């Protein structure tokens, strides 16, 4: 797919005879080597006592240019090429195989994939590639046979699982081919830009930490499996992440983040626009440092569209990921709620990886095929407040035995069902000022001194580190008190608590200011780009407490001077 093409020509592509794809695909030496080695492995392993019933290879080529700065100085500039192999080999059958979770076995301590990972040639020599594929197939086969024995024993000794669905879904073959996407990025000029983007933070002693990173990457994923699927997807991805933390006199740390993401080279904002946002960040940080501390509070609140989007992604979106309904260590909040009301009847929620833009904003949760070679499709999750469906990978759950194209991973991780583009829509809307009026009515009715407005929430995302964080944190960063007379006052140190799900049942109205949040979400299967979109929401009751503040004092000495003092 080429992102520069207008949408209609993309639609046109799908009418081309499939023969053409096959032709293009077969001239790709890497894809051909993968197919050859897959066939040879299946053939040879047939003779083994426990032959695999499924085998897939996914090679991910990634070139990533990453440039970082802090307080106006360059801190890093790298340009890396990687090629990673993800190999799924299954022995047993669709109903019970080596991937079946072992119960009561404690957390998995299997780091063999990280420690013994086969290096993959970056160059397209078919022989070298096939040796690497062969090595990894043999290693995975040995592990799979061993694991399957454990699974069989575990299933026999434990009580019957509550969910008796199988381990893998039947899916048909898919063929899809995109040529490697063109990629260009002017490293030198971006190094200069990144210096400019963080220079304003250096002017203020209150700002103690700061970084800006641009990541320009192009990724080509090639996939073949024993179902007969053969897929090649290629796209660039551009991101800028700017973070800054101010420290109040009492030691409280106040972070702010600004991100921009796009699949298009021209999709990142112009320099002036970013600088404008940076100056705004500086202003808000300086205001936050002086802002009064929030008090513990229970009462009505508005979540801006952006806050609602993050809130839905973190609190709702992760709970509709299929495998969480099956794993007996999970809370399984929604398992028994299918066809029951989980949201007010004016709200609809769907997840649509095939959607490229929404509310005039590009969506980074787009992809044509997921990481198990299943075509991406729209899933109606909640219709008129009633829970209808889950996001599914090829791991079935009771009542949902097929994938709906949501099996995703970062290269090197095991696939699980993940979000793509989560969209929250309301069938009744009011204007933003109207929503504020409704809030004030609620404040008065509840006899509260003020209500809250959550303007921005920091989602569970981080960009530079690949260590798994607690991805489900929801930390409000910009919060205002709204007084009955309409006056708004910035406060700091707000921590959202209580049972988040109760908040969903207390949603009473939505505005017409739909906001899109593009982010990179980290969970079991690594980091994947996602989006969430929502109108602003009025919630009749929300609970906050005061944030635990850092015990670290501000630095003892003032920041050093800009030039040498003689």
């Amino acid at each position, binding site marked *: 797919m080429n992102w520069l093409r207008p949408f209609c020509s993309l639609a046109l592509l799908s009418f081309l005879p499939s023969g053409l794809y096959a032709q293009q695909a077969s001239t790709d030496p890497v894809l051909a080597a993968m197919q050859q080695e897959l066939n*040879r492995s299946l053939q040879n392993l047939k003779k083994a006592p426990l032959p695999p019933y499924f085998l897939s290879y996914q090679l991910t080529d990634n070139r990533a240019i990453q440039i970082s700065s802090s*307080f106006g100085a360059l801190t890093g500039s790298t340009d890396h090429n990687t090629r990673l192999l993800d190999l799924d080999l299954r022995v047993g059958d669709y109903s019970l195989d080596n991937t079946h979770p072992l119960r009561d076995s404690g957390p998995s301590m299997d780091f063999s994939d990280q420690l013994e990972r086969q290096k993959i*040639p970056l160059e397209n020599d078919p022989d070298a590639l096939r*040796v690497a594929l062969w090595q990894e*197939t043999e290693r995975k086969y*040995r592990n799979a046979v061993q694991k399957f024995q454990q699974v069989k024993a575990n299933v026999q000794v434990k009580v019957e699982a509550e969910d008796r669905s199988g381990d893998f879904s039947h899916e048909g073959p898919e063929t899809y081919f995109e040529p490697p996407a063109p990629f260009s990025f002017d490293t030198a000029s971006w190094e200069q830009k990144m210096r400019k983007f963080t220079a304003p933070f250096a002017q203020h002693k209150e700002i103690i930490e700061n970084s800006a990173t641009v990541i320009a990457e192009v990724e080509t994923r090639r996939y073949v499996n024993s179902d007969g699927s053969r897929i090649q997807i290629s796209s660039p991805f551009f991101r800028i992440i700017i973070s800054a933390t101010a420290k109040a006199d009492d030691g409280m740390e106040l972070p702010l983040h600004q991100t921009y993401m796009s699949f298009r080279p021209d999709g990142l904002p112009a320099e002036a626009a970013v600088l404008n946002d940076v100056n705004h960040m500086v202003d808000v940080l300086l205001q936050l440092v002086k802002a009064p501390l929030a008090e513990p509070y229970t009462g009505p609140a508005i979540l801006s569209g952006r806050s609602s989007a993050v809130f839905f992604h973190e609190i709702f979106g992760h709970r509709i990921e299929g495998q969480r309904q099956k794993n007996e260590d999970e809370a399984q909040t929604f398992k028994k709620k299918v066809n029951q009301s989980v949201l007010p009847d004016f709200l609809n929620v769907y997840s649509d990886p095939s959607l490229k833009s929404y509310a005039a904003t590009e969506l980074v949760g787009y992809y044509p095929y997921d990481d198990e070679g299943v075509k991406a499709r729209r899933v109606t999750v909640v219709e008129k407040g009633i829970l209808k469906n889950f996001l599914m990978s090829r791991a079935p759950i009771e009542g949902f035995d097929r994938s709906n194209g949501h099996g995703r991973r970062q290269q090197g991780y095991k696939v699980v069902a993940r979000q793509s583009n989560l969209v929250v829509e309301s069938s009744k809307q009011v204007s933003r000022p109207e929503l504020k009026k409704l809030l004030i009515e609620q404040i008065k009715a509840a006899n509260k001194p003020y209500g809250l407005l959550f303007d921005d929430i920091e989602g569970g995302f981080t960009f530079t580190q690949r260590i798994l964080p607690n991805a489900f944190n929801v930390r409000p960063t910009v919060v205002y008190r709204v007084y009955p007379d309409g006056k708004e006052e910035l406060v700091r140190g707000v921590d959202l608590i209580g049972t988040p799900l109760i908040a969903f049942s207390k949603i009473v109205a939505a505005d017409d200011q739909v906001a899109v949040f593009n982010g990179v979400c980290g969970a079991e299967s690594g980091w994947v780009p996602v989006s969430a979109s929502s109108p602003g929401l009025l919630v009749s009751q929300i609970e906050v407490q005061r944030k635990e503040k850092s015990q670290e004092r501000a630095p003892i000495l003032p920041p050093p001077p800009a030039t040498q003092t003689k």
Partner: protein
Amino acid sequence: MRSKLIAPLLLALLATLALAQDDIPMQAMKDELSRSLAQLQLQKLDKPYFLAYRMDDINQSAVSAMLGSLTQEQPSHMRLIGVEVRVGDYALDNSNYVSLRNFGSGGMAGMFSSISQAPLDDNYQQIRRSFWIATDTQYKKALEDLSAKRAALEMRKRTDDIPDFTRETPVTETEPPARVQVTFDELKSLAREISAVFRGTPDIYTSSVDLEFRNYYTRYVNSEGSVFTRAQPVFKLQINARSQATGGLPISDSIVLFGRTLTDLPPKDVLLSRTRAMADRILKLRSAPSLERYNGPVLFEDQAASEIFTQQFATGLMAVRTPLSDDSRFEMFFNQMMSQLGGGSFVDKIGGRVLPEFLSLSDNPLMPDYKGARLLGTTTIDDDAVKTRETKLVDHGVLKTLLATRVPVRAVPHSTGNRRGWGPAPTNLIVTSEKSSSSDELRKELLRRAKDRGLDYAIVVRRVGGGTAASFMRMAMRMAQQGGQGGDSLAEVYKLYPDGREELIQGAEIAEMTPAAFKDIVAVGDTPVVFTDEFIPRVGSLFSLGIAASSNVPVVSSVVPSLLFEELTLVKNEGPFPNPPISPSPLAKQ
């Protein structure tokens, strides 16, 4: 009295002179250090009595290949800074203390918080800012640690009064950055070419060639007046190959070479023929006979002598201080862990015999080469800014001292100038002998001793294998419960028969070797070889797990003659082994 007055004046003069030549990072470091020293104080608490700033400029090019195809190409440039803050005084300060209570919150991250990154730009203010923030954090942590340490000491009777930090003479030394330029393309084509050797050997299942050029440039300044800059380029070539015997026994070998430049390595045709020879040997090993239990004399020839010496003996030569803790169980655990990992220190053996009387050992950082072969541990200044010097470690078999940093232990009250990275490490280890034998004489002596025991053959080891990095990996695997399969077999072992015939043996390993075995070396060769490898002190490695990648791993050269041990026990590696592959290599059919 007079000279004492002149010294500070002279220092001040030197400092001014040096200032003229300082580059921007060094200026920033000196200015921030002076400011911190003069002004840094929290309320009425202690000011720092010692501050040290370090900046490592690391330019690195890493290239890997397999079967003629690149698998990695990674140039990188980073600047790591380290800040050392000491409060209290030389006798008792915040160091040598581990708080188990705070382990949960600060944990490992807290231990390594003294390392952070600085901007790549020569931006005066931002480099100062990096040191400013790091100093502030470390100073606060130091105050907390010192008060916790004092509290912990009050709870018990202190049995030792060894100071926490030694006083050393300030040093000023400058060296320009190394001009060594290795082109990336040069590395790539060399890696491709060497790795392509294995295209012709489908029965060698995995192979790789890694070429790495690390150009370190260190800037250092401390509050005692020491200033240095030091260039340490390191070039490393590693060729690995692995296969399995028909019974599953893993067979692996490697060639690891170091230099300051690419030209320190043997020429390409020599590298290619050495690679081919290794490949041939691995193929032969796959169907070689194995050995049952062997008790008797063993000869370690050439490189194998250096390997066994550095792996099994040299690790004990470091003076490692047991840290004080708020939980006395920690100190017990620490000492147990040290001995379990085989890295117990020889500290209690000082004055005792550790080698035969005809052998002596010294650590010599001032020797640039040995008979024309470059030594990689050579340096004039260590990471604490202490002037390096030769240290006689073992004199006629008797252990005299250990290698130490500015953290003293009972028997070693001063630094020997051996702080390298995370702790003490050797530089160049030189074994000398009062008597030596030619290679033929050694073999004759070996066979004579075997015959005396009624053995019809003797054992010669020519490659030990599994260097520090490999055993470090295995330790990581074991900790991750992967149960490291097989693996410790000696890489190249022969049965030597009385008629001079050699027979290659697979899967032999040494049973329970201890440093005591080195006392019973009965003869040594007359042509020592230079062998160089990375040195990860075993105990230190546990504490640097999280930052292994970012620390300058010391490279140690050793000059050791062939060693004939009176008696060692060799046993057969019994596995369990992974199954051999089911499919043949895709290269096999062609």
